[in-house]
């Protein structure tokens, strides 16, 4: 416990002192070789007498297709050693077939404990995941976040802060209740912690270990894992809370079309009318719910290893619907080893998280420095009437009508007709 807490503190300290960046773009060697058509040709196996070569093994590790038929052709009956001699074959009982079945996870294995996971003695699905994590995930994910930050800086320089037109009225209207704001901040705090610890887990080996040492990186990652596993529950709870509280206000309607036509007010000089949430906020809401929900499900699959496999069933449904064909792909694999299920869950978890992080960075920008008066909605919950009228005119009118109605009723109750 103490060790975990120390790791947690170190992680927090480091996270706020200087988050990792993603500039390194070194291509994974396997990726470059896979693209070389010369390497795809069958290798010369004369040196091994027709048996598999190092090149065959490397090709399999790179995730390239390997035709294993040659292994069944290996060996001439006439030149084989006699059954009774030291290197003799087993006659009808063929050991190579058994070893091959073990190698390619085709053998009928029985285990006394551990279930399906332990029945897999050997599988190489992890190589594709390993190379994906080292290459595209790190590179594209890193650039996506940096690109988003760069775009927002550029947008800020060009457009500046979106200010309230005219003077503030000084009168406020309640935009969000306490419980709504609390749920928002649980979601925000947990997401930022999960994002930072997730990035440390992915990039620590490349950007922390070489500069601060492996020992420190190890401690940092133990802390990151501790935070990531436990804070995830706060995220999931808050996700359910905001969904229940706000889904009704985020159903698409006709006002969204007008909002999109004016790009939220960027095109033209008028503010488009909006209800409690405008179309941009609805996009954020559904991104958080759908992507956050997907991250939560894949996260649960990772939290309880091998107990919640997701992808074989999902792929089967997608194959039945013909979805891979829509993008020119063949059928997706449905016979996945438990270890491959975990690798896919981790890859999907990371991909969707990168997309949601980019969206949330934009959300943080517009809710803080990007727009005058926006922060108050989630800070005190009270927004200036001028802001409310400009950005959420329909909602503002309804709130004022309701308020007036209640005031009139209260007045009537206090002074009954004589």
């Amino acid at each position, binding site marked *: 416990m103490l060790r*975990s807490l120390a790791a947690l503190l170190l992680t927090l300290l480091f996270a706020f002192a200087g988050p990792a960046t993603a500039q390194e773009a070194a291509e994974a060697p396997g990726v470059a070789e896979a693209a070389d058509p010369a390497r795809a040709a069958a290798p010369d196996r004369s040196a091994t007498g027709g048996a598999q070569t190092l090149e065959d093994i490397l090709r399999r590790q790179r995730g390239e297709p390997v035709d294993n038929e040659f292994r069944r052709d290996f060996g001439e009956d006439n030149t084989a050693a006699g059954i009774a001699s030291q290197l003799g074959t087993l006659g009808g009982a063929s050991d190579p077939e058994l070893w091959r079945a073990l190698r390619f996870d085709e053998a009928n294995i029985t285990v006394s404990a*551990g279930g399906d*996971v332990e029945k897999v003695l050997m599988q190489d699905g992890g190589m594709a995941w390993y190379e994906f994590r080292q290459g595209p995930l790190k590179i594209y994910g890193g650039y996506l976040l940096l690109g988003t930050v760069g775009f927002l800086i550029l947008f800020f320089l060009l457009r500046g802060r979106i200010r309230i037109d005219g003077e503030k009225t000084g009168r406020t209207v309640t935009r969000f209740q*306490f419980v709504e*704001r*609390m*749920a*928002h*901040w*649980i979601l*925000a*705090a*947990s997401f930022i*912690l999960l994002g930072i610890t997730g990035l440390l887990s992915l990039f620590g080996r490349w950007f922390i270990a070489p500069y601060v040492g492996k020992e420190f990186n190890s401690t940092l990652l133990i802390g990151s894992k*501790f*935070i990531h*596993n*436990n*804070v*995830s*529950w*706060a995220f999931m*709870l808050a996700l359910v809370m905001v969904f229940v509280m706000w889904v009704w206000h985020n159903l698409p309607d006709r006002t969204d079309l007008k909002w999109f036509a004016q790009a939220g007010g960027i095109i033209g000089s008028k503010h488009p009318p909006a209800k409690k949430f405008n179309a941009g906020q609805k996009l954020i809401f559904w991104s958080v719910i759908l992507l956050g929900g997907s991250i939560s499900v894949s996260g649960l699959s990772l*939290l*309880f*290893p091998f107990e919640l496999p997701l992808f074989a069933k999902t792929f089967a449904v997608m194959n039945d619907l013909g979805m891979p064909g829509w993008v020119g792909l063949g059928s997706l694999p449905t016979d996945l080893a438990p270890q491959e299920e975990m690798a896919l869950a981790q890859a999907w978890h990371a991909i969707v998280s990168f997309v949601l992080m980019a969206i949330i960075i934009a959300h943080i920008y517009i809710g803080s420095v990007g727009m005058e008066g926006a922060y108050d909605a*989630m*800070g*005190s*919950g009270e927004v200036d009437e001028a802001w409310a009228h400009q950005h959420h005119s329909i909602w503002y009118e309804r709130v004022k009508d309701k308020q007036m109605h209640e005031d009139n009723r209260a007045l009537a109750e206090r002074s009954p007709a004589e």
Partner: protein
Amino acid sequence: MKAMMTGFAVTIVISVGAYFVLNEMGFSSQDVFSGDNVRLD
């Protein structure tokens, strides 16, 4: 600001609670896929 601070406090409480509940359940891979005869530490 009060809602924000409450939100942060709730996040911490849930996380610490989750730590104890999950460990009580023996959820970790180390607990699920290992035994006394396997050295992981």
